[in-house]
Each structure stands twice: as C-alpha cells, then as structure tokens.
C-alpha cells in the first residue's frame, strides 16, 4: 500500500482504498501511511484520523471513518 492507494475526503472525513482485486492489507500498514500523510505541512490543519489503542489494535478517531469497501480490504483489529 502506498499513499496513492488512499482516497481521502477531508470534508466528509471518509477514507477509502483505491485497490483493485481481492488483495487485503494489514491495518497497521494503513496506520503508518496515514501517519506519514498527516504530518505533511498541508495536512497539519486536519485532525489525526487514526490512533493505536494498543499493540496492533487501532481505532478511527476524531470523526473519521473508513468506507465500507475499505473495511473489507483490511485485516487486523480496527474499530
């Protein structure tokens, strides 16, 4: 997964994945990419969308959500 695989609607706070096929990604990978993306200067004005609640367990925060398709394309613990 790369940053290009993310579809982010900053207004509606919805995150989707632009991935073809049945390939699934570890939610930890999503976490790393989002953290990398949201520390860019242009994104500092947005609240962080995800945080690790415990080891390898994540949750969407600050009103951010994953779209339905993205949820199916991820594995690992995320709430």
């Amino acid at each position, binding site marked *: 997964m790369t940053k290009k695989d993310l579809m982010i609607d900053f207004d509606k706070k919805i995150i989707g994945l632009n991935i073809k096929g049945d390939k699934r990604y570890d939610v930890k990978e999503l976490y*790393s990419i989002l*953290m*990398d993306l*949201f*520390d*860019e*200067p242009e994104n*500092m004005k947005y609240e962080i969308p995800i945080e*690790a609640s415990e080891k390898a367990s*994540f949750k969407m925060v600050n009103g951010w959500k994953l779209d339905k398709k993205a949820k199916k394309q991820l594995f690992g613990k995320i709430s």
Partner: protein
Amino acid sequence: MPGTITTDLTLVNATGGDAEVITNWTTTAAWSGAPAVSNDVYLQGSNAINARASTATPGTIALYWDHLTTGTANLDLTTSGYHVYFWIKCFSLPSMEKKVRGGIGVSISSTAGVTKTGTDPWSGINDSKQWFVTGSDFEPLSGWVCYVVDPASTADLSLGTPVMTSVDRIGIRAGALQTVGGGSVKPLPVIWDALRYGTGLTIKDGTGSAPVAFTDVYTTDSTTANQYGIISKQAGTYFGAGKFNFGTTSQTAETIFYDFGQVFVWQDFPVASGFYEFIINGASGQETTLHLGQYTGGLTSKGCTIKGTGHESQRLIAPAIVSGGTGYTANDILTVSGGTGSTAAQFKVITVSSGVITEIRMETAGSYSSPPTGTLSVTGGTGSGATFTATVAGGSIWTLTASAANQVAKFYACTFSEMKSAALAYNTVSPVLSSNCGTTNNSPTLTTTGSFNTSGVVIGMSVSGTNIQANTVVSSIESATSLTMSKNATGTGSSLTMTFSHSSEVRGSTFSNSGAVTSNGCVIDNCTFQDVKTTAPISATYALIINSSTEMGRVTNCSFINCNRAIKITAAGTYTFDNLTFSGNSYDVENSSAGAVTINATNGANPGTFINTGGGSTTINNSKTLTVTVKDSAGSAIQNAQTSIYKSSDNSELLNADTNASGIASTTYNYLADTDIYVRVRKSSTGATKYIPASTTGTITSSGFSVTITLSVDTNA
C-alpha cells in the same frame, strides 16, 4: 512660618459681615431668642451672633431668618466665580428640621426687604435662593462649619425672582422642629460668624530650605483674626473649599510648596463644578514648585491623597413638574424610580388641581451612587402618570491646573480621586550657580557662598557639575548655603559651577474615579489610571490625553484599568507604548486625528482595542514570539517535527514549520488581546524515528506563548 498666604475673600458687609456687631442684620420672624452679639461663643474676631430657634408646637416647624445687608448694593455675585462663605454652628441640631426641609440654610436675596413668602417649610424672604446645608439628620457633632455655596447654582428652594447679579441680602435660615430653651437653661444655640464672598487662597514664597506646607496654609487660614474657612483640619485630615493658587504670574520671589503624607478632602458643598482647584503659576525667573510626596533612589513614597467626597450619597433637590398626572391628592408621597443607591428620593404633593399636581416639594432627598436623571417617573400616591425633573446635588470634585509656564509640579506616590480633570506640563527649570559652590570628597554636603534659596534650588533637583556623580539629586536643603545630595562628591573643590534641574513629573501615583489628565509632555511614570468617571458630576471620557509622540515618550510603565477610553491620541504619528498595560477598558486607544496612528508596543505593553473618531486609522504593532520546543522522552531535541499553531476562534494558522536542530519552531505574532490557541506536533515520515502525534492548547498573552511538548516513539507506525 514659611510662605505668604492671602485670600480674596471679602466681608459681605464691612460692618456686621464679621459678626462683631449686629448692625446691618435684619430678622424675619421673631426668633425665640433674639440674635445678639456674644463673645462667649465665637470663631472669628471677638464675637459671633447667637440666637435661639424654637417651636412652640413640637413637630410643627418654626422658621427664622436673619439677613445681612450687602455692603455694596446690588452686589454681583456671578463675576469672578464668587462663592459665599458663611460660618455657622448650631448645637441644637437634634431639635431642628431635617436638612431636606431646610433645618439650617444659607439665604441669598436680590430684594432689600425681608418679607417672608411661601408656606413653611418652603418659605423664605422675597426673591431669594435658599441652600439647605444641614439639619437634625445630617451633622450630629454640631461643630463650626464654613458653608460654601455657589450663588449661581440651583438652590434647594427658590422664591420669587432671585437675581444673583444684584444681591442685597445674605443670611441664615433656621427651622426648629422641637422646643429649645423650654427648661431652665435658655441657650442661644444657633450661631453664625464671618460672612464673606470670594474664591480662595493664594500661596506664595517659601524656599528650598523652608518650603510652604499645608500646615502653614491652614495656620494662616484658621487664625482667630482670619478664619477664612477655605482650609480646615480634623483628625489630621485637611478639608478644602475653594481655589488654591500656588504662586502667581507676577511674583517677585520663588514659590516653593512641599508636603508629604497628607490627606486632603474637598468638602461636599453646593459649589460650581470647576470651583475646587489647585492652580500653579509662576513668573519668569521666579518659578513655582509644587512638590507632593517623596522620590528617593527611584522609589516613590509618602504621597498625598487628594480626593472628593459624597459621591456615594448624592441626592435630589428642587423637583419640578413635567406632567402633573391624574388622580393625585395633596400630601401624597411619591417615590422616585430609577437610579442606584441606598435610599430612594421621595417627593411630596403640596397642591393639586382636579387631581393634577400643581406644586411638588422634596420629602426625602435620597442617597445615590448613581442618581436617576432626566424625566423622573414615580410610584405611590393616589394618582398616576406624573413625571418630574430634579437637580442632582452632592459629590465634590476638583481640578488640577498645572499647565502654566514657569512652574514645576512634582507628584510622587500620590492618589488623586474624584478629580474632574488635570492639565500638566513638562516645564524644565535649570538654575545655575556659577563659581560659588564647594564640595568635599566623599561627602554629600554641597555648600554655596551664595544662596540655594534665592537661586530656586529645591529638593529633588538633579545636580551636575565638577565632583558630582551621575544621577545625583538634592535630598534635603539644610539652609540657604548648605544642602545634602543623594550621592557623595568625588573630590574636594570650591568656586565650582553647579547646574540644578528639574521638570514636572508624576511618579508612582494613582488617578481613580476621575476625569482626563492632559499630559502636555509631563513625565508620567509608574502610574495607574483607573475607573474613569463617565457619569455626573465628572462626566469624563478619557484617562489620558496625548497630543504628540514626544509626549507619549514621557509616559512609561503605567496601567490603565476600567477606563472608557484609556488614551486619547489627537495627532497622527508613530507612538511607542513603553510598558503601558491595559485591562477592562472599552477602548485602550482613541485616535481622534484625521491621520494614521501607529502604535509600537514594547516592554510588555498590551494595547489591544482602539477606535478612530477623526477619520484616521490606527495600527498596533505588538510583536510577540510563539515558541514550541519538541523533545523526546529522554529530553533530547527532536528536529524536523512538523509543528503548527492555530487560533481556537477561527482555526487560522499562526505557525506551520519543522523544528530546528534545537527542537524549536517559532514565529512572531501581533498581540492585541489574549488569544486561545491549539498546538499540533507530528513526526511520522518514513526514514526516521516516528513519534505518536501530540497536541495541546494554550493562550497567547502579552508575554507571547511558549510550550515544550514531549513526543513518544510510535512503535506501530
């Protein structure tokens, strides 16, 4: 005794005005004990007039008057700001009527006759104005009081057509409500003495070694021969009632007034709003110095308090009918609505015509900190719809006029309150003593073969010359030929030239509950301007008026608190606010000029609000630093952490930058008011240690903003 103290007070009549004789006094109504000259109880001269006021029917007022014919027929009391000064003592006050209905009063008439008119207690002689000055409810100590009234002011009672440009009689009114002298003792407890008109005192002379002080003024005022009544003293507090002229423009010697640690209260009498005044004047080469408080080693102390009184107990007088309403009955008591105070004023309906009020009088004067004004509505009585006007009385105010040339005013640790306005000046006086001074090494004593006094040298002047250290001032003046400096001389010498210098300045002082101070360039340092009085009788708008950037440059380290408009700037330009702090003001600055005013705040100054009233514009520059320091849990700086600051109010961005090698990201911010912010720090880019994002909130204050944020390593990223 230092100083020459004179007055412009004039006896209303050279014969009888000093109450040494009964001549020229005429009674109205036969007093219970006829007025007679007595040398048993008197204040001024050798005698006073004593009389007894009593009622045969307790509870029903019996009124008496005794008027003095003016020495000059048709005396014009409206010129030159004349006020009437009348010494009265009544030791039967508990038996007299209340003040509101004229227990004891001062009566001024423009008719030579003394025929009574009106219905008691609203009665007096023809064409007279009567000021009710005390009564059974007002002054339990029954001491001598020199009552002062402004003939031009609204009186408690006005009868006929009194013309104050043509006064023929001035006298006393006494209204008894109880029997006096009904027993074996037959006192004459209503006593009056000197009756004068004028404005105040002139204080001149004094020297650096023997300056004039309030005690000297009081001593002269209160001699048996004088008893002017312009300054009195009780329990160590001075009470003033008139103009105090310090120096004159034609004086032929220096005037030096110096005092400290005194309390001076302006008496609450019915005087003109600009009547109470400290006025400082001097002559070229013969300057005047007014010096209150002490200033030593950069510290102020022992200041004087000068204040008005009576502002929390203002009252209503002289009601007038606007609308008579309907359905009212004589003797109705109507309570006035509105205002803030402890007691509401009440009016009494005297007469009605078919239920419409045709005559109204005071019943209760009321006690207000903020009296009702304008058209007054009332409650009570049998009718409705009546409205009135009334005059607000009470609350003494004063003016400080220290703006003339050839004078220097120096105020240290003073408190000025209930001050209508002040006009200051810069005025530098620099006497030089040429080739006649002597110093001794390591001694603070400076001697002269001439005279420090006649040279105009005063305490507080800076001293410069051979063997004199920098920032040396005159600490005390022991004699005309010897003074003590604040620092030792650095060598021994004689026939030296010394320069002395000082300017007007106000340091460590407070102006409260007052009106505007116009600096005119006066040095104002470490002062507080608080609670500009916007309501009557001061009705001010500004705390401080500044007319140029040069003037502003002499105002430093001051606070402006709860002012309608703290500083009024009248001219375009660039102004430096050096540690001028503002809080609770409607506007910190008013720019009344038609041009651009730029304010550069320094040393913690925090001007934030302004209003442009002259068509100009105002820019406040108050650059503050916002700093975020980012460290890891070991306390080491983290470089390249993305750091941002946003305003909480509108999410506008103030900072968005990477931290430097010291872990710091910073920016500048133009501070206008405390501003809530939130801070974000993130570092999760690939290729370096990643950290869990952090955020916090804070407030930008006049000191700026600084925070340290510690990041924890993110093991999930």
